[in-house]
């Protein structure tokens, strides 16, 4: 039966590979091709211009600002989201006090309720979340400043999205809020499959909660964390950051370009300024950044696999 094996495999792979080539690889190649033209997106006529778009990009202040913000998104968001999610997941699954008659390893009181609460934002569309927070950040009548006033902090009334020093952080906070629940559930699932004996042994040896976390939980969860990290980074570079920035910090990307990101810039150049070729050029830059990000995370995260 060996001789038919490859034909068999090829037969199965041909269709998905074909679809992949048609809908993923081919658009990439086309995009790269269009980045060397002066295509406007509004007329079928264009001509080759060589590296003009790339030279222009390197001298474009807004491109560099967008890149800076995108990188900040890709670094800070996964760090904050995943740290928070790990902490919450640990508390929900492992961090509880030992209760008489209960299982040896358990979460804090009410942990199943918390799990649902954390996951709740995940069911809302990112567009709705962004809109809700846009209202909350309204400096005049929004929830955030109202709470500040309510607790007597009348003098502290920041402009939030209207302040170039705060706007980017406000946007990031919303993304953290809306994605942390997904990772709590993901990590909870991972922790659930870590054998309870390991925790019992650690407890018997008198390990504190922190030690348990860093010596037992985290190493055994490492693969999940790493995947989550890449996943979050790509979200932060791509779709999610576009949605929140576009919806919340309308204007062109925050006051004084303080929140503009690469995806938003691609969109604006292609669909507002009629410069589709330049947009594809920025898109190519985004592709490079994202691939580099994934590669770096994979590289740095490589460690010996633990067997248990």
């Amino acid at each position, binding site marked *: 039966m060996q001789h038919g094996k490859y034909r068999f495999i090829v037969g199965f792979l041909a269709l998905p590979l074909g679809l*992949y080539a048609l809908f*993923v690889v081919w*658009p*990439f190649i*086309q*995009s790269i091709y*269009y980045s060397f033209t002066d295509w*406007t*997106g*509004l*007329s*079928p006529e264009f001509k080759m211009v060589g590296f003009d778009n790339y030279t*222009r990009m390197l001298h474009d202040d807004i491109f560099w600002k967008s890149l800076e913000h995108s990188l900040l998104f890709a670094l800070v968001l996964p760090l904050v989201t995943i740290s928070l999610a790990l902490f919450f997941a640990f508390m929900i699954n492992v961090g509880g006090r030992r209760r008489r008659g209960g299982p040896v390893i358990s979460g804090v009181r009410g942990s199943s309720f918390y799990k649902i609460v954390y996951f709740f934002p995940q069911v809302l569309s990112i567009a709705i979340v962004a809109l809700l927070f846009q209202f909350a950040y*309204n*400096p*005049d*009548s929004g929830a955030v*400043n109202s709470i500040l006033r309510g607790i007597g902090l009348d003098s502290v*009334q920041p*402009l939030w*999205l*209207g*302040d*170039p020093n705060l706007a980017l952080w406000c946007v990031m906070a919303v993304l953290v809020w809306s994605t942390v629940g997904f990772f709590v559930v993901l990590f909870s699932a991972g922790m659930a*499959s*870590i*054998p309870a004996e390991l925790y019992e042994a650690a407890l018997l040896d008198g390990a504190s909660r922190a030690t348990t976390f860093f010596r037992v939980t985290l190493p055994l969860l490492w*693969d*999940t964390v*790493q*995947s989550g990290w*890449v996943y979050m980074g*790509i979200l932060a570079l*791509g779709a999610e950051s576009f949605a929140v920035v576009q919806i919340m910090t*309308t*204007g*062109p990307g925050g*006051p*004084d*370009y303080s929140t503009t990101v690469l995806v938003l810039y*691609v969109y604006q150049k*292609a*669909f*507002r*300024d*009629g*410069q*589709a070729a*330049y*947009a*594809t050029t920025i*898109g190519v830059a*985004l*592709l490079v950044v*994202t*691939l580099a990000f*994934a590669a770096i995370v*994979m590289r740095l995260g490589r460690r010996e*696999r633990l067997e*248990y």
Partner: protein
Amino acid sequence: MGSTSNNSAEGVGRRDLIKRSAALGLVAAPGMGLLSACASSGGGGQKKDKAGKKTAKNPLGVNDTAKMEFVLFDGGFGKEYAEDAVKIYEGNFPKATVKFSATQKIQSTLQPRFNQGNPPDLIDNSGAEQMDMGVLVGKNQLADLTPLLDAPSYDDPGKKVRDTLRPGIVEMGQFDGAPVWILYYAYTVYGVWYSQKALDSLDAEYPKTWDEMLAVCEKAKKKGMAGWTYAGKYPYYLPFSLYPMIGKVGGREVLDAIDNLEPNAWKHPAVKACFEAYYELYQKGYILKGTPGLDHIQSQTAWAKGEALFIPNGSWVENESANVIPKDFDLAVSAPSGIDGSDKMPFGTIWASGGEPFVVPAKAANPEGGMEQLRIMLSEASSKNFTAKVKSLTAYNGGTTGITLTPGLKSGVAALQLAGSNVVNPRLQDWYVQLQKEKIGVSGLGEMMAGRLTPAEAVKKIQGFADEAAKDNTIKHYKHQ
């Protein structure tokens, strides 16, 4: 024992990397990919319909059996006015079929069709997804509307269409001289909007000089009302009152020099004086607290609730804020206050210009039909219908007699009368969209009015932006004729 990890040594890592990269492709590429699909589908173009015979009743020579397609931007003015005009077209050409559609997504709907060379015959290219006019003109995608302007008007065969339009409309539709590419159908009055009732309650009149303005604001402040608010997230609303003020203080040439991107245009003393005047509003605390964080709807709502006295805006505000403006608000608009008696132009100098740009694509199958539809819309009856329905004037000069005008509209008409020939029309916002909105608006004026730039710094920054735009050869440059 259970295991969360994969058994192969590098399994998850490598494979995940590939999977994620694929996912990334789906995240980052679709826009580019889809765009590419449009371009590569080629520019075959569609067949032109044969023109019909020119007669007195059909001066443009519309083929009365040809299909006519009309795509309208479905925005603040709705679509009813256009539907009414389409009915007239259908009545005049019973054998023709008209395909009418209204959308908010002008660019996403029409961009592929321009790329394929089969655009509709008439487009209201407006709204947030407006297609860049400079690009359309530059790539020869628009038809010259001169035949329409030279055709007899719908109501009076002795008068050309161009002679029935408000001043400035024809010029606005031109890019670099002669041919007319765009016909702006609505006519917008920009300025300082306020509640006459609120002003009366302060025992004040609309201030004509800046000292008077500061005095009114001080009065309002004592009553717990802010003097001004504006769309803080879209500070490019500020120019609606600031630019005509610059024109009033320094004369039209200052605004023209700014539009022409002349070196040091922004360093004119009139610009600085007006910037300083506005900055004073911030310094003296006359701006509604939190304004830089508000968008246009939020600021308009705060203003309608009486939290602030003045707001720079355009005449669409009456329709847009209709549900938040109280019944006894007594909406009014005024030309901007000046600095003092030494201003170059008189009080009343106002910014008014066309809105709702209609275009006929060069590659349309039935361009005569598209133009005829516009000719119908520019009749007195259609114009009146528009004004009555959406509380805005049209490009048709007149057409307000016999209909009850809403307070804002009435005040707009009065402001135009007071202005007479002193109507200015700064073009930055339709010539250089990004420069006007993002750079001058958000990064310049917005930052200054939030107190993060001094007027001198703002002038310098904005001049830098203008110089950059003047040097940028990827955008088309224009000059006042």
